[in-house]
């Protein structure tokens, strides 16, 4: 009993100590991202004050960077909840150090992704017309519109993701509460901890809560990106009207999600010296998943373009033409290279599935997946059926500012989160350590142990 207890304590101390340490890198990151947050809000404010025309969108390219970024960020959000849920459900041990950071990515990416449709609106001040609520005008939104489904799906997902991030955070918040000196900080953690005392009953409820959410969140996540794809697939627009868009988008989302996760893991491993937990084997495994997704994505892309080409439909072929040979050929083939050729070339070999190469491949895939969304939105719109109206699109500084600013907002939120709360789940790590030490794979037994342990100021080991 003593050894694991001591080990757990040491582990807590080690992790929390690392979290507590003031790291100059984080501070600089916070400041830089804070500046980008200002850029974001300045650009948005400028757009609201002057009109949506400060963007580069036009007729016929009515959707531009905002929708591209919307899809991109929603895709990124699949890094966390979905992957962590799958890992939890399958009880993959190596998930323990990554789940928290992945779930945080989900929540923040979703928050930002969810903002983009609002930024995109011509009259954002009356965005609430899209929300079904009883009103004195006696009007309801149009439930046939994919945009209304979007709102429902994203709201569900964001609430689910927030809960899913929040539940495993409760025991850790309690630890933070107990370590903090009285004051505003303590009260903050106290609110987050929801009165957690670490009783067996509470642990039991928490476990169940997480388990139910983990199962429930998977279909929600799948549905979200499917519905996002329906913003396109449900239209008449050549280049969009496609039955495979649902799974194609989900695969793309998971693909980009893994890319973010690979980058985050590599950074965490270095930043928090977690080599002990995020072993090369973890990267190897995730790398295999990554290359699989790359291949699946490549397969979908091929299937999509083959059917278009084969169909011979004049209008579809026009879009296909500008993509493969026309104005958009350079981004298209870049996308194929960074999303398919490089991942396959690098990750097929065990030496390629190490932290640094996977992270670099992940960066490439992020660029590639952003391009993919660009290539879905812009070429289709700029090549309408009546050729007279063919147009082009160049983003304005406002759109670029908001795009870069959004990255800043994300970074700022993430840095703030890292400063305030343990980015690695302390209790799950300890649980994992105990599994490793006790060799018990039986969750219930292993989890029962700490609750019956001797009194400890740490709620994880509390109870009398």
């Amino acid at each position, binding site marked *: 009993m003593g050894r694991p207890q001591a080990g757990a304590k040491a582990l807590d101390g080690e992790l929390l100590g690392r979290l507590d340490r003031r790291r100059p890198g984080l501070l600089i990151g916070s400041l830089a991202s804070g500046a980008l947050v200002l850029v974001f809000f300045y650009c948005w404010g400028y757009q609201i004050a002057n009109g949506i025309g400060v963007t580069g969108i036009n007729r016929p390219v009515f959707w531009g960077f905002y929708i591209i970024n919307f899809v991109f960020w929603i895709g990124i959000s699949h890094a966390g909840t979905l992957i962590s849920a799958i890992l939890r459900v399958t009880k993959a041990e190596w998930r323990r150090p990554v789940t928290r950071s992945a779930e945080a990515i989900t929540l923040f990416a979703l928050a930002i992704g969810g903002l983009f449709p609002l930024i995109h609106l011509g009259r954002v001040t009356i965005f609430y017309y899209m929300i079904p609520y009883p009103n004195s005008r006696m009007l309801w939104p149009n439930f046939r519109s994919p945009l209304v489904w979007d709102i429902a799906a994203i709201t569900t997902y964001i609430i689910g993701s927030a809960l899913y991030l929040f539940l495993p955070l409760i025991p850790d918040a309690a630890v933070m*509460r107990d370590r903090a000196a009285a004051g505003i900080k303590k009260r903050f953690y*106290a609110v987050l901890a929801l009165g957690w005392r670490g009783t067996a009953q509470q642990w039991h409820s928490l476990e169940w809560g997480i388990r139910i959410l983990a199962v429930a969140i998977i279909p929600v996540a799948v549905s979200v990106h499917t519905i996002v794809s329906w913003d396109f697939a449900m239209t008449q627009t050549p280049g969009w009207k496609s039955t495979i868009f649902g799974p194609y988008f989900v695969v793309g989302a998971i693909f980009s999600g893994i890319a973010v996760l690979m980058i985050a893991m590599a950074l965490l491993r270095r930043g928090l010296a977690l080599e002990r937990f995020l072993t090369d084997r973890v990267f190897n495994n995730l790398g295999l998943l990554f290359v699989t997704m790359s291949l699946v994505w490549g397969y979908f892309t091929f299937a999509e373009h083959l059917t278009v080409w084969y169909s011979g439909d004049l209008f579809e072929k026009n879009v296909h033409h500008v993509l493969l040979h026309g104005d958009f050929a350079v981004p298209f083939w870049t996308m194929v290279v960074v999303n398919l050729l490089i991942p396959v070339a690098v990750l097929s070999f065990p030496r390629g599935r190490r932290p640094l190469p996977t992270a670099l491949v992940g960066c490439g895939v992020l660029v590639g997946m952003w391009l993919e969304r660009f290539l879905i939105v812009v070429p289709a719109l700029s090549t309408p059926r009546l050729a007279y109206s063919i147009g082009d699109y160049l983003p304005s500084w406002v759109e670029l500012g908001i795009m870069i600013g959004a990255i800043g907002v994300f970074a700022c939120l993430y840095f703030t989160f890292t400063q305030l709360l343990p980015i690695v789940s302390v209790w799950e790590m300890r649980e994992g350590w105990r599994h490793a030490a006790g060799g018990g794979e039986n969750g219930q037994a292993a989890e029962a142990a700490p609750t019956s342990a001797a009194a400890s100021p740490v709620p994880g080991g509390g109870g009398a």
Partner: protein
Amino acid sequence: MAEAQRRRLYPPGARPDCRCAGLPAGIWILGLALFACGPTQNLPTPEQPIAYDHQVHIEAGLECVRCHRGAEEGVHAGMPSVQSCAGCHRREIPDHPEVQKVMLANENREPILWAKVNVIPDSAMVHFNHRAHARAGIECLTCHGDVASMTVAEPVRNVADMGWCVECHRENEASDDCLECHR
């Protein structure tokens, strides 16, 4: 259990705490209120450049359409011209201080800028057709209240409340197509 022990087990912040629930609940209620109240129910009576008294004029035997000429036949009810006001008042109480304002405007050929009492804001993009309502037999007082008993006209109904319009249209089997009014 000793008090110290208890305090250790239940640190001060560890009590089950529901205060955090107050915030979302508050936002929810406020939000509902915001959405549901629709156009404001507060109907201020605007200040007019000339203290025109409806009651006096109607008691003197003038019909609404005598001055608001378009009320029955026109798209807009309209305001009487300065010239026609002055035409009558040349005989009737020309020395009244408020009437003097009219006479002055007439001499200077300046229009009088009345404050609108029943306002549908421009942002609603509504094109109200007065004569269509008159044709359907809607009484003046349905929308304007009993102006005959008012001195300065004051709003009695919020004419910008779309739900009220729709309700009446449906009850009277008038078209409730959006384009009927919004275009």
